[in-house]
């Protein structure tokens, strides 16, 4: 699977490291250890350097994601609109802390510095869907919407 990614980039070019890692993460949802080694060989850097980059940037994760990813915006505008409370409520509802995945692998809860949708604060996103002006009361409904199992499409 990585070979397909590597086809798009010139080998031994150190500058493509971040882009390659982004593509790998796009496929797996995280950066598996063996993939990091392959990427290191491909760009011609020691694994330690690749690991250094992977841990520096917030986007990269070394553990797998849950089925749905909830991102709670913790920007200034959201903060003054009480997003800390929203986060706390989701944390209690899912029984995880920010940055963790629920045991049934249904949800991963993350915080993000700013989504850039400050005009409709507080904002949370679930996968690619945005929810603006979120009230604490709406949270159970939002969670319910995503926790019902998806129908298998044959």
């Amino acid at each position, binding site marked *: 699977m990585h070979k397909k990614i590597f086809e798009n980039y010139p080998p031994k070019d150190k500058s493509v490291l971040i882009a390659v890692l982004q593509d790998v993460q796009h496929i797996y949802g995280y950066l598996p250890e063996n993939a990091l080694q392959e990427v290191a060989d491909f760009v011609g850097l020691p694994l330690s350097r690749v690991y250094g980059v992977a841990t520096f940037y917030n986007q990269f994760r070394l553990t797998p994601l849950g089925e749905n990813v909830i991102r709670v915006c913790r920007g200034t505008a959201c903060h003054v609109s009480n997003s800390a409370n929203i986060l706390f409520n989701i944390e209690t509802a899912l029984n995880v802390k920010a940055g963790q995945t629920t045991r049934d692998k249904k949800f991963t809860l993350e915080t993000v510095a*700013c989504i850039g949708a400050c005009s409709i604060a507080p904002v949370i996103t679930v996968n690619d869907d945005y929810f603006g002006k979120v009230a604490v009361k709406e949270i159970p409904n939002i969670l319910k919407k995503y926790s019902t199992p998806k129908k298998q499409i044959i």
Partner: protein
Amino acid sequence: MKTFIDVCCKECWHSTEKPCDQFIRCCTEGPLCHHNPDCEKKFKQLNRELTYQEHNLPVIFIGKGTCGLASGAQKTEDAIRAELDKLNIKAIIETTGCVGYCAKEPIVDIKLPGKDRVSYCEVTPKIVSKLIQKTIVEKGIYKENFLGKYGPAENGYKNINDIDFFKRQMKIVLENCGVIDPTSIDTYIAHGGFKALDKVLTHRKQEEVVNDILASGLRGRGGGGFPTGKKWDFALKQKSEQKYIICNADEGDPGAFMDRSVLESDPYKVVEGMLIGGYAIGASVGYIYCRAEYPLAITRLENTIKNCKQYGLLGKNILGTGFNFELKIKKGAGAFVCGEETALIASIEGKRGMPKPRPPYPAVSGLWGKPTVINNVETFANVPQVFNKGVEFYASIGTKTSKGTKVFALSGKIRNTGLVEVPMGTTLREVVFDIGGGIPNNKKFKAVQIGGPSGGCLPEKVMDTVVDYESLKTVGAMMGSGGLVVMDEDTCMVDVAKFFLTFIQNESCGKCVPCREGTKRMLEIIEKIPMSYKNTANKVDQLQRFKGIIHLQRLADVIKDTSLCGLGQSAPNPILSGLKYFKDEYEEHLYDRKCTAGVCKELLTFTVNNDLCEGCGLCARKCPVEAIMGEKKQAHYIIQDRCIRCGMCVDSCKFEAIDVE
């Protein structure tokens, strides 16, 4: 619809292999190289169609920026399409970006053939059928959701630029935002796009372009406010076979979203600005470093680059002038420090995004050691307008040291959230109260936070400060990227300081000690302020609380003076401005152990109001620590030792029976 590439006859020979230097002028005035009445008619017709002056079907514009989509613009569009199908009406549906009035999204404009374009706000799927019935079927104006119309006012329906939100604004950067289709290059050209590039490439030498930008007084809009012309001049004077130009779209400041909006709503203008910059300094490769958190902006940019290549506006020998320019997108990976220019360069090179000491400045030795110019999205969006509107005109707007306009992102506790563009020299009061509409829910204004984590919180008494780089510095804030977060009496300033320090602490790259360790110590001190020691009764900690405050000012000064990059140097700003303007509030937390705003949870006490409690038991069920007890249908009570002050009971109570003090 036809495009400018294929509208003409065989006489037009413009292609990427053999570009024509008159192509841009030809599109709007054409054809210029040959005389053919038929072609002339076709060009005119296409221009009229693209500027929406002539069309047979009703045109429906739907604002689909991120804020529009988050407010449900896609659902509105689906409802409109379904309604049109049901009524069997044919219409053109156009996607536009964000007009700036985010509080009123989703915004839908409707233009009937031969009539003025009318803007409607808060168009939810519920009102779609009424809206279509009134406007397209009955050809009237739907009064209830009317926002403004383009063209002269009539029957009490105001022009959109005369409504309170837009009245005091001056649109230079945001001119096209929300008005044109950001995905179509033809629309951009028909609205006067790439004219500045055409003028620069064919009539100006590199030095002349740099001098024009210098004379216009344009300064970097990313925060620092360094004169753009000077930066370009340094880079131009460097002798090197390869130079680079970079657009900094790593808008990490929480509370700022103007770059996102510009990239989503008018990406061609940014690319045009970069082309002009590239030509001026002699760069043949450009990068746009965009946050990965802005997927829509990246998609629109990719589309823009593809179209520009197809039209011969990117690539080799642009417009037959021998100027080569290639543009690449680099996706950021979520590091706030990468907004700093040397860190951004490191990130493009594929390294950890850590800043380097300057000098050498990037204009001398930047990306891969070559001269590099880095400008912000808004700066680049200003560049074509300097040439379109004229250098003198641009230099005439604003104050003595700051020229042009500035886009602000209004958010927080304010009525009209959204993007506003005002000339430099406008007072903060005008921006917040006249344009922003003041504070909702009859609350009292407390502060406005300007400049993100590097800026400061300004109270009511300095609201008459005018917007320019110098004045904002004198009151202890900075322009920053232009996020304005308004705070009301329910916001606690100690909590805000804690919030920003946590942010800085998380985002500090760790390279230099003052920033890495200093901000950590500052955060510890601030965290101790609202801490309650009721349970532990630890005297030593109480002492530390006061000791910390004594050292806070000095610590902040040292961090400011000794940090390596802008992130660290400006990190103490939120604290310093807080101590300067909101000392009372800090003291109230320290000595009275109270938080009037009701934010610092450890200083609050929750009690049940016996008169209001109906004994429904909802709060007891919701309480995560089982601190609420009581018989059914009897007033409940809270066990204070167990209470973690999470506020769940307040949110769940239907009778407002929980008192917070």
